[in-house]
Protein backbone atom coordinates (compact mmCIF):
# COMPACT_ATOMS: atom_id res chain seq x y z
CA UNK A 1 0.00 0.00 0.00
CA UNK A 2 1.38 3.35 -0.96
CA UNK A 3 1.92 5.81 1.85
CA UNK A 4 -0.21 8.93 1.64
CA UNK A 5 1.98 11.28 3.63
CA UNK A 6 0.65 13.94 5.98
CA UNK A 7 3.23 16.30 4.55
CA UNK A 8 5.21 16.73 1.41
CA UNK A 9 8.50 14.85 1.58
CA UNK A 10 11.62 16.92 1.86
CA UNK A 11 11.40 17.86 -1.78
CA UNK A 12 13.26 14.88 -3.25
CA UNK A 13 16.85 15.96 -2.72
CA UNK A 14 18.14 15.31 0.73
CA UNK A 15 20.59 18.13 1.20
CA UNK A 16 22.88 16.17 3.46
CA UNK A 17 25.41 18.90 3.41
CA UNK A 18 23.23 21.73 4.67
CA UNK A 19 23.38 22.63 8.38
CA UNK A 20 20.81 21.23 10.77
CA UNK A 21 19.42 24.64 11.59
CA UNK A 22 19.81 28.15 10.24
CA UNK A 23 18.09 31.21 11.77
CA UNK A 24 18.26 34.39 9.75
CA UNK A 25 17.10 37.49 11.59
CA UNK A 26 14.09 35.69 13.04
CA UNK A 27 11.44 37.40 15.17
CA UNK A 28 8.85 35.37 17.08
CA UNK A 29 5.68 36.30 18.93
CA UNK A 30 2.24 35.05 19.78
CA UNK A 31 -0.81 36.04 17.80
CA UNK A 32 -2.78 38.71 19.62
CA UNK A 33 0.23 40.15 21.44
CA UNK A 34 1.78 43.18 19.83
CA UNK A 35 5.36 42.83 20.90
CA UNK A 36 7.59 39.97 19.84
CA UNK A 37 8.93 37.53 22.39
CA UNK A 38 12.20 37.09 20.53
CA UNK A 39 13.74 39.10 17.71
CA UNK A 40 16.84 39.42 15.64
CA UNK A 41 17.82 35.79 16.12
CA UNK A 42 20.75 34.52 14.07
CA UNK A 43 22.14 31.04 14.48
CA UNK A 44 23.74 28.33 12.42
CA UNK A 45 23.90 24.84 13.84
CA UNK A 46 25.78 22.05 12.11
CA UNK A 47 24.56 18.50 12.03
CA UNK A 48 25.55 16.22 14.84
CA UNK A 49 26.00 18.99 17.37
CA UNK A 50 24.05 19.36 20.55
CA UNK A 51 23.29 22.64 22.17
CA UNK A 52 21.59 23.86 25.34
CA UNK A 53 19.13 26.73 25.45
CA UNK A 54 19.24 28.49 28.78
CA UNK A 55 17.21 31.36 30.12
CA UNK A 56 14.85 32.46 32.82
CA UNK A 57 11.24 31.54 32.92
CA UNK A 58 9.47 33.34 30.16
CA UNK A 59 12.62 34.18 28.29
CA UNK A 60 11.44 32.40 25.18
CA UNK A 61 13.11 28.99 25.19
CA UNK A 62 9.87 27.15 24.49
CA UNK A 63 8.86 29.76 21.98
CA UNK A 64 12.06 29.19 20.04
CA UNK A 65 11.58 25.44 19.96
CA UNK A 66 7.94 25.78 18.92
CA UNK A 67 8.96 27.87 15.97
CA UNK A 68 11.33 25.17 14.74
CA UNK A 69 8.61 22.56 15.22
CA UNK A 70 6.33 24.62 13.00
CA UNK A 71 3.85 25.46 15.76
CA UNK A 72 4.35 29.21 15.53
CA UNK A 73 4.39 31.50 12.52
CA UNK A 74 7.50 33.59 12.09
CA UNK A 75 7.02 37.31 12.45
CA UNK A 76 10.10 38.01 10.44
CA UNK A 77 13.14 36.30 8.99
CA UNK A 78 13.68 32.75 7.86
CA UNK A 79 14.38 29.43 9.51
CA UNK A 80 15.74 26.52 7.53
CA UNK A 81 15.66 23.08 9.05
CA UNK A 82 17.98 20.46 7.56
CA UNK A 83 18.14 22.58 4.44
CA UNK A 84 14.37 22.90 4.00
CA UNK A 85 11.68 25.31 5.04
CA UNK A 86 9.95 24.72 8.38
CA UNK A 87 7.22 22.13 8.10
CA UNK A 88 8.60 20.41 5.01
CA UNK A 89 10.64 17.74 6.67
CA UNK A 90 8.55 16.78 9.64
CA UNK A 91 9.64 13.18 9.71
CA UNK A 92 13.20 14.35 10.23
CA UNK A 93 12.33 16.57 13.17
CA UNK A 94 11.06 15.36 16.53
CA UNK A 95 9.75 17.68 19.24
CA UNK A 96 9.27 17.07 22.94
CA UNK A 97 7.06 19.89 24.20
CA UNK A 98 7.17 21.41 27.67
CA UNK A 99 3.60 22.52 27.92
CA UNK A 100 1.27 19.72 26.97
CA UNK A 101 -2.12 19.98 25.49
CA UNK A 102 -2.57 16.29 26.09
CA UNK A 103 -5.89 14.85 27.22
CA UNK A 104 -4.47 12.42 29.73
CA UNK A 105 -7.92 10.99 30.41
CA UNK A 106 -8.30 9.81 26.84
CA UNK A 107 -8.72 6.03 26.87
CA UNK A 108 -5.52 4.93 25.17
CA UNK A 109 -2.85 2.52 26.33
CA UNK A 110 0.80 3.41 26.75
CA UNK A 111 1.70 1.10 23.91
CA UNK A 112 -0.75 2.62 21.48
CA UNK A 113 0.23 6.10 22.53
CA UNK A 114 3.88 5.46 21.81
CA UNK A 115 2.90 4.12 18.40
CA UNK A 116 1.60 7.56 17.44
CA UNK A 117 5.28 8.49 17.12
CA UNK A 118 5.34 6.40 13.95
CA UNK A 119 2.21 7.92 12.39
CA UNK A 120 4.33 10.43 10.54
CA UNK A 121 5.88 7.54 8.64
CA UNK A 122 2.55 5.79 8.08
CA UNK A 123 0.62 8.77 6.73
CA UNK A 124 -3.11 8.69 6.08
CA UNK A 125 -5.09 5.45 6.15
CA UNK A 126 -2.27 2.97 6.82
CA UNK A 127 -2.48 1.24 10.16
CA UNK A 128 0.44 0.31 12.38
CA UNK A 129 1.56 -3.26 11.66
CA UNK A 130 3.96 -5.78 13.15
CA UNK A 131 7.11 -3.81 12.26
CA UNK A 132 5.80 -0.74 14.00
CA UNK A 133 4.70 -2.66 17.05
CA UNK A 134 8.15 -4.16 17.39
CA UNK A 135 9.86 -0.77 17.15
CA UNK A 136 7.55 0.60 19.83
CA UNK A 137 8.20 -2.33 22.14
CA UNK A 138 11.94 -1.77 21.84
CA UNK A 139 11.69 1.89 22.73
CA UNK A 140 9.48 1.15 25.72
CA UNK A 141 12.03 -1.39 26.83
CA UNK A 142 14.85 1.11 26.54
CA UNK A 143 13.02 3.53 28.81
CA UNK A 144 11.95 0.76 31.23
CA UNK A 145 8.29 1.29 30.48
CA UNK A 146 7.56 -2.24 29.24
CA UNK A 147 5.82 -3.25 32.43
CA UNK A 148 3.42 -0.32 31.98
CA UNK A 149 2.65 -0.95 28.31
CA UNK A 150 -0.96 -1.98 28.90
CA UNK A 151 -1.80 0.82 31.32
CA UNK A 152 -3.94 3.76 30.36
CA UNK A 153 -1.87 6.90 30.04
CA UNK A 154 -3.55 8.55 33.01
CA UNK A 155 -2.37 5.75 35.24
CA UNK A 156 1.23 6.94 35.02
CA UNK A 157 3.10 9.26 37.38
CA UNK A 158 4.40 12.57 36.14
CA UNK A 159 7.89 11.22 35.60
CA UNK A 160 6.57 8.20 33.76
CA UNK A 161 4.49 10.42 31.54
CA UNK A 162 7.60 12.43 30.73
CA UNK A 163 9.44 9.26 29.76
CA UNK A 164 6.47 8.16 27.71
CA UNK A 165 6.66 11.36 25.69
CA UNK A 166 10.37 10.95 25.33
CA UNK A 167 9.79 7.43 24.03
CA UNK A 168 7.42 8.74 21.42
CA UNK A 169 9.86 11.42 20.43
CA UNK A 170 12.60 8.83 19.98
CA UNK A 171 10.38 6.55 17.95
CA UNK A 172 9.96 9.36 15.52
CA UNK A 173 13.50 8.48 14.38
CA UNK A 174 14.36 12.04 13.47
CA UNK A 175 17.72 13.59 12.67
CA UNK A 176 16.94 16.75 14.62
CA UNK A 177 15.52 16.52 18.13
CA UNK A 178 13.98 19.47 19.94
CA UNK A 179 13.72 18.73 23.63
CA UNK A 180 12.00 21.18 25.95
CA UNK A 181 13.11 20.41 29.49
CA UNK A 182 13.42 16.67 28.99
CA UNK A 183 14.24 16.09 32.64
CA UNK A 184 11.16 17.81 33.91
CA UNK A 185 9.47 15.66 36.57
CA UNK A 186 11.90 12.81 35.95
CA UNK A 187 13.27 11.45 39.19
CA UNK A 188 16.96 10.96 39.96
CA UNK A 189 17.07 7.28 39.11
CA UNK A 190 15.55 7.72 35.69
CA UNK A 191 17.59 10.79 34.97
CA UNK A 192 20.62 8.59 34.47
CA UNK A 193 18.60 6.46 32.09
CA UNK A 194 17.42 9.42 30.04
CA UNK A 195 20.91 10.85 30.05
CA UNK A 196 22.19 7.58 28.63
CA UNK A 197 19.58 7.60 25.91
CA UNK A 198 20.47 11.15 24.93
CA UNK A 199 24.16 10.33 24.84
CA UNK A 200 23.31 7.40 22.59
CA UNK A 201 21.50 9.75 20.21
CA UNK A 202 24.44 12.08 20.17
CA UNK A 203 26.74 9.20 19.36
CA UNK A 204 24.46 8.23 16.48
CA UNK A 205 25.10 11.68 15.02
CA UNK A 206 21.68 13.21 15.75
CA UNK A 207 21.40 16.93 16.29
CA UNK A 208 19.95 17.96 19.68
CA UNK A 209 18.53 21.28 20.76
CA UNK A 210 17.64 21.16 24.44
CA UNK A 211 15.94 23.81 26.54
CA UNK A 212 16.83 23.28 30.14
CA UNK A 213 17.65 24.92 33.42
CA UNK A 214 19.27 21.76 34.62
CA UNK A 215 22.91 21.15 34.15
CA UNK A 216 22.42 17.51 34.95
CA UNK A 217 23.63 16.44 31.56
CA UNK A 218 27.21 16.36 32.66
CA UNK A 219 30.07 18.60 31.79
CA UNK A 220 30.87 17.54 28.26
CA UNK A 221 27.42 16.86 26.86
CA UNK A 222 26.69 20.12 25.13
CA UNK A 223 28.81 21.47 22.36
CA UNK A 224 27.50 24.97 23.06
CA UNK A 225 25.21 26.83 25.45
CA UNK A 226 22.98 29.67 24.36
CA UNK A 227 21.28 32.04 26.74
CA UNK A 228 18.06 33.89 25.99
CA UNK A 229 17.84 37.27 27.63
CA UNK A 230 15.56 40.15 26.81
CA UNK A 231 14.46 38.63 23.55
CA UNK A 232 17.85 37.86 22.07
CA UNK A 233 20.23 34.93 21.92
CA UNK A 234 23.85 34.97 23.04
CA UNK A 235 26.38 32.19 23.16
CA UNK A 236 27.79 31.53 26.59
CA UNK A 237 31.28 30.23 27.42
CA UNK A 238 33.37 28.45 24.83
CA UNK A 239 32.28 25.44 22.84
Amino acid at each position, binding site marked *: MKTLRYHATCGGHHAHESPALVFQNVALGYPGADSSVLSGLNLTLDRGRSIALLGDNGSGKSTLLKSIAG*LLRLRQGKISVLGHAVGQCHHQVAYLPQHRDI*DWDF*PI*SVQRFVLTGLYIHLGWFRRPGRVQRKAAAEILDRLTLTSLAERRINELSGGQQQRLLLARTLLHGADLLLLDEPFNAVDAENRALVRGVLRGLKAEGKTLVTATHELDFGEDFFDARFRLTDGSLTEEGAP
Partner: protein
Amino acid sequence: MIDWLLDPFAAPFMQRALLAAALAGVNCAVIGVYIVQRRMSFFGGALSHTVLPGMVFAFLRGLDIFWGALGAALATAFGVSWLARRREVGEDAAIGVVLSGMFALGVLMMSQVNSFRDFNALLFGSVLGVAPADLILTAIVTVIVLIAVGLINKELELASVDPEYARVIGARPDRMRTVLLVLTALSVVTAVRVVGALMATALLITPAAAALIWARSVGIAMLLASGIAAFSVIAGLIISYQFDFSSGASIVLASTACFAGSWLARAWRG
Protein backbone atom coordinates in the same frame (compact mmCIF):
# COMPACT_ATOMS: atom_id res chain seq x y z
CA MET B 1 -42.38 -14.18 26.92
CA ILE B 2 -40.56 -14.63 23.63
CA ASP B 3 -43.80 -13.70 21.91
CA TRP B 4 -44.06 -10.62 24.03
CA LEU B 5 -40.59 -9.65 22.86
CA LEU B 6 -41.07 -10.50 19.21
CA ASP B 7 -44.66 -9.40 18.71
CA PRO B 8 -43.86 -5.74 18.19
CA PHE B 9 -41.70 -6.51 15.21
CA ALA B 10 -44.26 -8.51 13.26
CA ALA B 11 -45.25 -5.62 11.04
CA PRO B 12 -42.85 -4.37 8.38
CA PHE B 13 -43.09 -0.76 9.56
CA MET B 14 -41.85 -1.76 13.00
CA GLN B 15 -39.03 -3.75 11.44
CA ARG B 16 -38.03 -0.70 9.47
CA ALA B 17 -38.23 1.48 12.56
CA LEU B 18 -36.10 -1.01 14.47
CA LEU B 19 -33.48 -1.16 11.77
CA ALA B 20 -33.38 2.60 11.26
CA ALA B 21 -33.14 3.28 15.00
CA ALA B 22 -30.49 0.64 15.51
CA LEU B 23 -28.37 1.99 12.67
CA ALA B 24 -28.78 5.55 13.95
CA GLY B 25 -27.95 4.37 17.46
CA VAL B 26 -24.73 2.70 16.33
CA ASN B 27 -23.80 5.75 14.30
CA CYS B 28 -24.33 8.11 17.19
CA ALA B 29 -22.64 5.81 19.66
CA VAL B 30 -19.49 5.57 17.55
CA ILE B 31 -19.21 9.31 17.00
CA GLY B 32 -20.42 9.98 20.54
CA VAL B 33 -17.30 8.37 21.97
CA TYR B 34 -15.24 11.18 20.47
CA ILE B 35 -17.80 13.82 21.34
CA VAL B 36 -17.95 12.82 24.98
CA GLN B 37 -14.23 12.27 25.35
CA ARG B 38 -13.42 15.63 23.76
CA ARG B 39 -15.92 17.39 26.02
CA MET B 40 -18.05 18.49 23.12
CA SER B 41 -21.30 17.23 24.63
CA PHE B 42 -22.84 20.68 24.63
CA PHE B 43 -22.16 20.94 20.96
CA GLY B 44 -23.78 17.55 20.37
CA GLY B 45 -26.78 18.63 22.38
CA ALA B 46 -27.05 21.93 20.57
CA LEU B 47 -26.87 20.23 17.19
CA SER B 48 -29.93 18.20 17.90
CA HIS B 49 -31.88 21.39 18.60
CA THR B 50 -30.60 23.51 15.80
CA VAL B 51 -31.72 21.02 13.17
CA LEU B 52 -35.26 22.18 13.89
CA PRO B 53 -35.47 25.20 11.54
CA GLY B 54 -33.98 23.13 8.73
CA MET B 55 -36.48 20.36 9.27
CA VAL B 56 -39.40 22.75 9.43
CA PHE B 57 -38.21 24.55 6.33
CA ALA B 58 -37.87 21.31 4.39
CA PHE B 59 -41.24 20.19 5.65
CA LEU B 60 -42.92 23.40 4.53
CA ARG B 61 -41.28 23.16 1.15
CA GLY B 62 -42.32 19.54 0.84
CA LEU B 63 -38.71 18.33 0.76
CA ASP B 64 -37.45 15.36 2.68
CA ILE B 65 -36.71 16.57 6.21
CA PHE B 66 -33.43 14.69 6.06
CA TRP B 67 -31.90 17.32 3.81
CA GLY B 68 -33.27 20.19 5.87
CA ALA B 69 -31.87 18.71 9.05
CA LEU B 70 -28.55 18.03 7.41
CA GLY B 71 -28.26 21.57 6.10
CA ALA B 72 -29.09 23.10 9.46
CA ALA B 73 -26.71 20.74 11.27
CA LEU B 74 -23.85 21.63 8.97
CA ALA B 75 -24.69 25.32 9.28
CA THR B 76 -24.49 24.97 13.07
CA ALA B 77 -21.23 23.09 12.91
CA PHE B 78 -19.55 25.74 10.81
CA GLY B 79 -21.34 28.66 12.49
CA VAL B 80 -20.26 27.72 16.00
CA SER B 81 -16.69 27.01 14.89
CA TRP B 82 -16.50 30.36 13.21
CA LEU B 83 -18.08 32.35 16.02
CA ALA B 84 -15.95 30.70 18.68
CA ARG B 85 -12.72 31.09 16.71
CA ARG B 86 -13.16 34.87 16.75
CA ARG B 87 -12.81 34.90 20.55
CA GLU B 88 -15.25 37.71 21.24
CA VAL B 89 -17.30 35.07 23.05
CA GLY B 90 -16.32 31.75 24.58
CA GLU B 91 -17.16 28.57 22.70
CA ASP B 92 -19.84 27.47 25.10
CA ALA B 93 -21.59 30.84 25.05
CA ALA B 94 -21.37 30.80 21.25
CA ILE B 95 -23.02 27.40 21.20
CA GLY B 96 -25.70 28.63 23.61
CA VAL B 97 -26.50 31.66 21.51
CA VAL B 98 -26.58 29.79 18.20
CA LEU B 99 -28.63 27.00 19.75
CA SER B 100 -31.22 29.35 21.17
CA GLY B 101 -31.45 31.47 18.08
CA MET B 102 -31.83 28.62 15.64
CA PHE B 103 -34.26 26.75 17.82
CA ALA B 104 -36.38 29.86 18.23
CA LEU B 105 -36.32 30.33 14.47
CA GLY B 106 -37.61 26.79 14.10
CA VAL B 107 -40.37 27.43 16.61
CA LEU B 108 -41.27 30.64 14.84
CA MET B 109 -41.56 28.84 11.54
CA MET B 110 -43.66 26.15 13.22
CA SER B 111 -45.97 28.76 14.65
CA GLN B 112 -46.68 29.96 11.12
CA VAL B 113 -48.20 26.62 10.24
CA ASN B 114 -51.50 25.51 11.48
CA SER B 115 -51.07 21.93 12.39
CA PHE B 116 -48.40 20.89 14.77
CA ARG B 117 -49.10 17.20 14.65
CA ASP B 118 -46.36 16.91 12.09
CA PHE B 119 -44.00 18.75 14.35
CA ASN B 120 -44.54 16.48 17.24
CA ALA B 121 -43.01 13.80 15.08
CA LEU B 122 -40.11 16.11 14.31
CA LEU B 123 -39.59 17.05 17.92
CA PHE B 124 -40.27 13.77 19.65
CA GLY B 125 -39.82 11.20 16.89
CA SER B 126 -42.17 8.61 15.50
CA VAL B 127 -41.74 5.00 14.56
CA LEU B 128 -44.49 5.32 11.97
CA GLY B 129 -42.59 7.71 9.81
CA VAL B 130 -39.75 5.49 8.70
CA ALA B 131 -40.28 5.00 4.99
CA PRO B 132 -38.13 2.53 3.05
CA ALA B 133 -36.34 5.53 1.53
CA ASP B 134 -35.44 6.81 5.00
CA LEU B 135 -34.05 3.43 5.84
CA ILE B 136 -31.83 3.55 2.79
CA LEU B 137 -30.59 7.06 3.64
CA THR B 138 -29.88 5.99 7.20
CA ALA B 139 -27.99 2.95 5.96
CA ILE B 140 -25.95 5.07 3.57
CA VAL B 141 -25.06 7.52 6.31
CA THR B 142 -24.11 4.67 8.62
CA VAL B 143 -21.82 3.25 5.98
CA ILE B 144 -20.25 6.65 5.40
CA VAL B 145 -19.75 7.26 9.10
CA LEU B 146 -18.31 3.84 9.81
CA ILE B 147 -16.00 3.90 6.81
CA ALA B 148 -14.84 7.42 7.63
CA VAL B 149 -14.16 6.49 11.23
CA GLY B 150 -12.42 3.30 10.12
CA LEU B 151 -10.18 5.21 7.76
CA ILE B 152 -9.19 8.11 9.94
CA ASN B 153 -9.64 6.69 13.41
CA LYS B 154 -5.88 6.77 13.92
CA GLU B 155 -5.78 10.49 13.17
CA LEU B 156 -8.98 11.29 15.09
CA GLU B 157 -7.55 9.52 18.08
CA LEU B 158 -4.25 11.37 17.85
CA ALA B 159 -5.95 14.72 17.33
CA SER B 160 -8.06 14.05 20.42
CA VAL B 161 -5.34 12.87 22.75
CA ASP B 162 -2.54 15.20 21.65
CA PRO B 163 -3.61 17.89 19.19
CA GLU B 164 -0.26 19.63 19.33
CA TYR B 165 1.68 16.57 18.23
CA ALA B 166 -0.89 15.98 15.52
CA ARG B 167 -0.19 19.47 14.28
CA VAL B 168 3.55 18.94 14.41
CA ILE B 169 3.42 15.87 12.21
CA GLY B 170 0.90 17.48 9.89
CA ALA B 171 -2.13 15.34 10.73
CA ARG B 172 -4.21 18.53 10.88
CA PRO B 173 -6.20 18.36 14.11
CA ASP B 174 -8.34 21.35 13.10
CA ARG B 175 -9.41 19.58 9.95
CA MET B 176 -10.06 16.44 12.00
CA ARG B 177 -12.28 18.55 14.23
CA THR B 178 -14.28 19.72 11.26
CA VAL B 179 -14.58 16.14 9.97
CA LEU B 180 -15.79 15.10 13.40
CA LEU B 181 -18.39 17.88 13.44
CA VAL B 182 -19.65 16.84 10.02
CA LEU B 183 -19.84 13.19 11.05
CA THR B 184 -21.71 14.26 14.19
CA ALA B 185 -24.14 16.24 12.09
CA LEU B 186 -24.74 13.22 9.87
CA SER B 187 -25.29 10.93 12.83
CA VAL B 188 -27.67 13.25 14.60
CA VAL B 189 -29.68 13.68 11.43
CA THR B 190 -30.22 9.93 11.12
CA ALA B 191 -31.36 9.75 14.72
CA VAL B 192 -33.89 12.54 14.34
CA ARG B 193 -36.46 10.48 12.49
CA VAL B 194 -37.10 7.91 15.19
CA VAL B 195 -36.24 9.60 18.47
CA GLY B 196 -36.97 13.16 17.41
CA ALA B 197 -34.83 16.26 17.27
CA LEU B 198 -34.94 16.97 20.97
CA MET B 199 -33.83 13.53 22.03
CA ALA B 200 -31.15 12.81 19.46
CA THR B 201 -28.70 14.31 21.96
CA ALA B 202 -29.28 11.33 24.16
CA LEU B 203 -28.26 8.75 21.57
CA LEU B 204 -25.08 10.71 21.01
CA ILE B 205 -24.07 11.19 24.61
CA THR B 206 -25.59 8.58 26.88
CA PRO B 207 -24.33 5.29 25.38
CA ALA B 208 -20.89 6.79 24.80
CA ALA B 209 -20.71 8.15 28.34
CA ALA B 210 -21.79 4.77 29.70
CA ALA B 211 -19.14 3.00 27.64
CA LEU B 212 -16.36 5.45 28.52
CA ILE B 213 -16.81 4.71 32.21
CA TRP B 214 -15.23 1.34 31.51
CA ALA B 215 -13.47 1.33 28.21
CA ARG B 216 -9.69 1.31 28.05
CA SER B 217 -9.48 2.14 24.36
CA VAL B 218 -11.48 3.99 21.77
CA GLY B 219 -12.22 0.81 19.83
CA ILE B 220 -13.64 -0.93 22.87
CA ALA B 221 -15.60 2.17 23.81
CA MET B 222 -17.15 2.26 20.37
CA LEU B 223 -18.10 -1.40 20.48
CA LEU B 224 -19.54 -1.09 23.97
CA ALA B 225 -21.42 2.09 23.12
CA SER B 226 -22.83 0.53 19.97
CA GLY B 227 -23.96 -2.47 21.96
CA ILE B 228 -25.63 -0.25 24.53
CA ALA B 229 -27.29 1.80 21.80
CA ALA B 230 -28.56 -1.27 19.96
CA PHE B 231 -29.86 -2.80 23.17
CA SER B 232 -31.55 0.47 24.14
CA VAL B 233 -33.23 0.70 20.77
CA ILE B 234 -34.60 -2.82 20.92
CA ALA B 235 -35.66 -2.61 24.55
CA GLY B 236 -37.08 0.85 24.05
CA LEU B 237 -39.17 -0.16 21.07
CA ILE B 238 -40.55 -3.25 22.79
CA ILE B 239 -41.47 -1.25 25.88
CA SER B 240 -42.93 1.49 23.76
CA TYR B 241 -45.06 -1.03 21.86
CA GLN B 242 -46.21 -3.02 24.83
CA PHE B 243 -47.03 -0.10 27.09
CA ASP B 244 -47.95 2.51 24.50
CA PHE B 245 -45.15 4.83 25.55
CA SER B 246 -43.50 7.40 23.31
CA SER B 247 -40.92 5.48 21.28
CA GLY B 248 -38.22 8.14 21.44
CA ALA B 249 -38.55 8.60 25.18
CA SER B 250 -38.53 4.84 25.76
CA ILE B 251 -35.32 4.39 23.79
CA VAL B 252 -33.65 7.28 25.57
CA LEU B 253 -34.72 6.06 28.99
CA ALA B 254 -33.47 2.56 28.18
CA SER B 255 -30.07 4.05 27.41
CA THR B 256 -30.22 6.16 30.57
CA ALA B 257 -30.87 2.97 32.50
CA CYS B 258 -27.80 1.41 30.87
CA PHE B 259 -25.77 4.42 31.91
CA ALA B 260 -27.07 4.23 35.45
CA GLY B 261 -26.20 0.54 35.61
CA SER B 262 -22.74 1.15 34.25
CA TRP B 263 -22.17 4.04 36.62
CA LEU B 264 -23.41 2.20 39.67
CA ALA B 265 -21.27 -0.82 38.85
CA ARG B 266 -18.27 1.46 38.61
CA ALA B 267 -19.05 3.37 41.77
CA TRP B 268 -19.54 0.07 43.53
CA ARG B 269 -16.21 -1.30 42.40
CA GLY B 270 -14.67 2.02 43.41
